[in-house]
């Protein structure tokens, strides 16, 4: 794994081949893509959370109200 000694710009990638000279002479600059990844992370988690909530709502309905109107549902081209 390559970790810049002066600045650890997480996340780091593993290199199985040779990544070249790892003794960089200047502090690493956090690339825009990594900042974007960090900024996107809460959005991605939010999206997963939202669909998770949707699934919980559907599950709740299935458990508490589901079976009674199952047939109606089928007649509605569900």
């Amino acid at each position, binding site marked *: 794994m390559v970790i810049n000694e002066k600045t650890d710009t997480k*996340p780091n990638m593993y290199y199985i081949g040779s990544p070249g000279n790892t003794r960089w002479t200047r502090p690493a600059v956090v690339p825009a*893509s990594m900042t974007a990844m960090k900024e996107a992370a809460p959005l991605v*988690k939010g*999206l997963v959370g939202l669909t998770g909530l949707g699934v919980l709502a559907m599950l709740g*309905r299935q458990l508490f109200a589901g*079976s009674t109107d199952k047939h109606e549902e089928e007649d509605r*081209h569900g």
Partner: protein
Amino acid sequence: MARQFKRHDRSDIFIHWFNAACWLLLLVTGIGLISNPAIDPFGSGYPAALRAMVGGGGNLLVIHEVIGFVWMLGFIWYLAVNARGSLFFLKEIFIVSPTRDMAWMMKKMVLMTLGPKPLKMMGVSPELPPQGFYNMGQKAFAQASVAGGVVIAVTGVIMFLSDKTFGQEAVGIVSWAVTLHFIAVGVVFAGLLVHIYMAAISPEERPGFRSMFTGHVPEDYARHHHGLWYEKVKTAPKSEG
């Protein structure tokens, strides 16, 4: 047995479960490859533990890459043996009828979570517009998994090559590949939660679930859930299965 309609080929069934198994393994190993407190979905203990388990992050990466290539080879095989099926699938999922399908999607979301009452209260009929081979929910998820799958595969190969044939000039591309890989997985995963619920847990879709093993669905399920498809195939000669 009631009349059956063929939905999936043997190769369709194989690629679906093969893809699902690969996804599971790639998720488990992939999440262990990110290690940043601002990103880790399960906290930083998970990547550390998983790396320790396989003897280091380098090994974990090799495992993830091997599964990733097996996954891609699976799809190359599928495209080769069932080109017609693939084309049919792509056509079915990307052709959307805006008014019919959006109405279906909106109503279905309300029906599945709150039931028919809110629709009736707003004076909207809870009747769902008939759907084709796939309903709009299936189409939306399938579109995300196809587009997401392509992004994941391409960015995965870019990262794989990053320390092999690429040099310094590719640093920008490689680091954007990391970000896009992560976002694409997240978006497909969000859809996957709903997919698994609808396909495996929701009782109404039970015949659809069985069809991913047997390949066919009974007539009344086809008529009620995929009316437009049913209209097309009902007059066809008795389908096998």
